[in-house]
């Protein structure tokens, strides 16, 4: 699960998050607008109620005079019976109060105004809306309606808004996750196939479904590409393999003819020339053998002789084999070997190591270090030298068959050594790469062959 989560593309997460934030903002705007509208409706309603009650009281006053009004207020009759309505009549001795403990301070206005209503000593003040007016006898009549309209609305909308945000965020995360997982699930199969193609399995294909979405299109194109690569590679392989194969017999006959000639001549100059010819024929034969071996390795036409093998022991043998040669060339060949057991083919691994040591000796190193290490599921054989190294741009190219860098053209060899190492790595499901030397002076070349345990 963690692996899959890590494969979620950050871009997709950001995109989904942005879409949801926009959605949230637009909902917030709608809610805010709605709140304003509703508040307006309720306020208008209250205003009308306040005015209605006042008109009712004024009508009573005009018909029955002050006593009728006072009675209506005290007994809470008619429109004064509504428990949310409060009334105060002041200016004629003891104030007459209905639903009130204290007369709210209020100027005389045409329209009702918001006020705080004091209902009693232990009850918190309540918001309300009231209007004040003057009766013909000079008394002051305050009429109002209680109701914490705005704050209650705000509370309700805040609660609703909060809930909406929580739900929306949860949904956003869930859908981002699902979307991401689905995308990574689909791309994973594609990536795995691409990985197989890259590691030389040109027969790898993706299942094709024709639902017509972008992924299907991608899969289809991937398969077409793989088909094309497969054809090209097998054509190339067949051509070079048959070429190498067809060249072996003439080379064998050439060597035989030189051998026969060597038996027959006594002149030292002729012998020398024939021996040089013989060496070159041998070099050519080795190149052909190696080229064929690489083709066989890459084509998988090699029996599996992998056994649990301590690479340190193989490296030790190789170091011992090459130590006198290194000493003769004035090179210090060192080993730093840790036990590293991998399932490997001793013959192939030792050939790979031989090629790497050969290369280091050939290209002017003064000190060559052979290392083996084991780290978390992998084993590594590394050959570090302090030679001129290989420029980063040339490193991928130099492991290809028959590729030789300009400075190597004058030296013997066929440009197959590193290609062979790469083929051995792939054969084992491992990797081979070249890097800058990691010694204290940071010079030279570090060649790393990694094999799975």
């Amino acid at each position, binding site marked *: 699960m963690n692996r899959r989560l890590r494969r979620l593309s950050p871009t997709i997460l950001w995109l989904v998050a942005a879409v949801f934030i926009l959605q949230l903002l637009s909902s917030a705007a709608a809610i805010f607008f709605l709140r304003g509208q509703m508040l307006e409706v309720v306020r208008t309603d209250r205003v009308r109620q306040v005015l209605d009650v006042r008109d009712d009281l004024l009508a009573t006053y005009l018909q029955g005079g002050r006593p009728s009004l006072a009675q209506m207020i005290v007994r809470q009759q008619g429109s004064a019976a509504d428990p949310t309505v409060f009334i105060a009549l002041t200016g004629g001795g003891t104030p007459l109060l209905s639903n009130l403990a204290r007369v709210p301070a209020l100027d005389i206005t045409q329209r009702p105004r918001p006020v705080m209503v004091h209902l009693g000593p232990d009850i918190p003040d309540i918001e309300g809306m009231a209007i004040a007016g003057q009766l013909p006898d000079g008394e002051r009549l305050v009429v109002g309606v209680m109701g914490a309209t705005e704050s209650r609305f705000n509370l309700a909308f805040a609660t609703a808004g909060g809930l909406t945000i929580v739900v929306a965020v949860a949904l956003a995360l869930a859908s981002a996750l699902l979307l991401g997982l689905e995308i990574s699930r689909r791309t994973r199969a594609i990536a795995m196939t691409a990985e197989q193609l890259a590691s030389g399995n040109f027969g790898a294909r993706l299942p094709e479904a024709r639902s017509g979405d972008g992924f299907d299109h991608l899969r289809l194109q991937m398969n077409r590409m793989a088909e094309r690569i497969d054809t090209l590679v097998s054509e190339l392989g067949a051509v070079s393999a048959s070429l190498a194969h067809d060249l072996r017999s003439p080379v064998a006959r050439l060597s035989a003819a030189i051998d026969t000639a060597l038996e027959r001549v006594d002149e030292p100059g002729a012998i020398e020339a024939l021996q040089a010819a013989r060496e070159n024929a041998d070099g050519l034969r080795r190149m052909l*053998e190696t080229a064929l071996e690489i083709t066989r390795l890459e084509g998988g036409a*090699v029996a599996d002789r992998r056994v649990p093998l301590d690479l340190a022991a193989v490296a030790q043998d190789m170091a011992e084999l090459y130590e006198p040669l290194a000493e003769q060339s004035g090179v210090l060949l060192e080993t730093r070997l840790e036990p590293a057991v991998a399932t490997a083919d001793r*013959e192939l691994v*030792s050939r790979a190591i031989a090629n790497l040591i050969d290369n280091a000796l050939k290209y002017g190193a003064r000190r060559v270090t052979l290392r083996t290490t084991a780290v978390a599921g992998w084993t590594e054989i590394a050959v570090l030298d302090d030679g001129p190294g290989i420029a980063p741009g040339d490193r991928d190219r130099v492991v290809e068959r028959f590729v030789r860098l300009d400075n190597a053209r004058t030296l013997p060899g066929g440009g197959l050594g590193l290609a062979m190492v790469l083929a051995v790595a792939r054969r084992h499901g491992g990797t081979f790469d070249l890097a800058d030397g990691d010694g204290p002076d940071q010079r030279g070349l570090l060649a790393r062959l990694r094999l799975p345990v």
Partner: protein
Amino acid sequence: MMPAASTCTGNREVSARILLIEDDGQIADYIARGLDEEGFVVDRADNGRDGLFMATDREFDVVVLDRMLPAMDGLSLLKAMRAAEVDTPVLMLSALGSTDDRVSGLTAGADDYLGKPFSFAELLARLQVLVRRRTGTPRMQDTVLRCADLELDRLSRVVRRGGRKIALQPREFRLLEYLLLHLGEVVTRTMLLEAVWDFHFDPGTNVIDVHISRLRRKIDDGEGTMLFHTVRGAGYRLAAD
């Protein structure tokens, strides 16, 4: 204790009989001519059926068997031969030079395996080892190997030349032991690489030569008689002649 060899000159095997089963006329001619010059008696077959018939019918010292043959392939021939209890040493030749093919050849009962193309010197050296193994004095069980005044004790792992004790690295010891076991015979670089290091590839450099010259300095330096001999185009020979 086996008596020490009184001499260590290479007593060439004369008139050893070789059966050459090879369908490629050109290669067969080349091998037969070379072996003839070296004093071997060579019989030839150019297909598997005739080859099997000859191998079971007559006595040979070594059979040189090509792996790819008309009528019956080399591996089947070899199996049929071994099934008929013919234990003549077999040197298998093959254009299939890979390690796999070598392993399958040896598993089927071949005594040695040589990938084509090969040098005649390599073939000759390996043939002589097989002939010697069959006809010569078996030295494999000897605990002390000698050549002139050189003496190698396989149990105490002590090497002496005259009265001088020579200190050798373990691998040098095995190299010298192999050369002494093949006294007087030509051993090639690939034979040494296979027997002493158990590597079956051609490193293409002179790694073996450097090992030999190191060992040669330890054994021959300051001595009147040189025991190490370089055989041009082939390899090395340890002998007092």
